[in-house]
């Protein structure tokens, strides 16, 4: 896919703004064997810690354990268990991220966590919440929609989901990264880790 493919596809399917699509498309192109071709595919992205893949995913095992690309129901169940009453929210999102951090730190001797991984991990949580109709201030979205997105890699159109009216942009995602981090039980230790 090319950056124009990404910009038009993400807007049509998820109402994601061009600013985010161009930025993440730039990351994708970097992963290509031929970056000057300005195109990439999803397999290109499967490179550990470069430029997007990372440890402590919400639904994938760490690269250290061999398969960092297939959906892992055990990992996802860990993440999902923090959300109650069928909804996502900022605090359980922060706790779910912190849990995955602790789990990888404990089991993976090669665990890498810096500023790049911090932005990606919190940004991905924000992206999942916002694209699934989550409120920017509370992070509340329907868990069944988010769950289907992860477990089936399928937009939950069949469950009533529709692209949200306001586009998902770098500012909206940045706001959610800050909001989730602000309520994280691990923000002090995590902040120290990513800045030192």
């Amino acid at each position, binding site marked *: 896919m090319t950056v124009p493919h990404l910009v038009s596809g993400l*807007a049509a*399917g998820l109402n994601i703004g061009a600013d985010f699509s161009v930025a993440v498309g*730039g990351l994708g192109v970097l992963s290509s064997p031929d970056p000057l071709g300005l195109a990439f595919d*999803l397999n*290109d992205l499967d*490179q550990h810690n*470069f430029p997007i893949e990372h440890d402590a*995913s*919400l639904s994938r095992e760490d690269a250290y354990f061999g398969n960092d690309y297939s959906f892992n129901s055990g990992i996802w169940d860990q993440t999902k268990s923090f959300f109650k009453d069928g909804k996502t929210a900022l605090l359980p999102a922060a706790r779910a991220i912190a849990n995955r951090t602790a789990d990888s730190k404990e089991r993976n001797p090669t665990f890498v966590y810096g500023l*790049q991984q911090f932005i990606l991990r919190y940004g991905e949580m924000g992206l999942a919440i916002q694209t699934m109709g989550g409120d920017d201030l509370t992070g509340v979205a329907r868990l069944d929609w988010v769950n289907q997105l992860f477990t089936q890699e399928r937009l939950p159109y069949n469950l009533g989901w529709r692209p949200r009216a306001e586009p998902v942009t770098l500012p909206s995602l940045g706001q959610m990264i800050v909001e989730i981090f602000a309520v994280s039980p691990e923000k002090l230790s995590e902040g120290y880790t990513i800045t030192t």
Partner: protein
Amino acid sequence: MFKTTLLATLGVAVTSAQLLDIPGLLAGLAPAPANDPRFSTFTPPGHNDGKPANIPSIVTRGKSILTDRVVRSPCPGLVRLYPMGP
């Protein structure tokens, strides 16, 4: 490493922007209509899903990329980058 990646990303983004018809691209940006058949046509992840079907195996940064894995991306956030269909 992060700074290098960031700078390279910005470089690629700027280059991409220069090569694109930005006004034309932005003018057409909007969610697809609710009755767009792509929303209701779903194909589960399958073999060779992560790359164009007519391209043989790729070696990237010295790492051989398998071509028959059932995967759309190494991370769920990236699944949403896949514009083949919702």
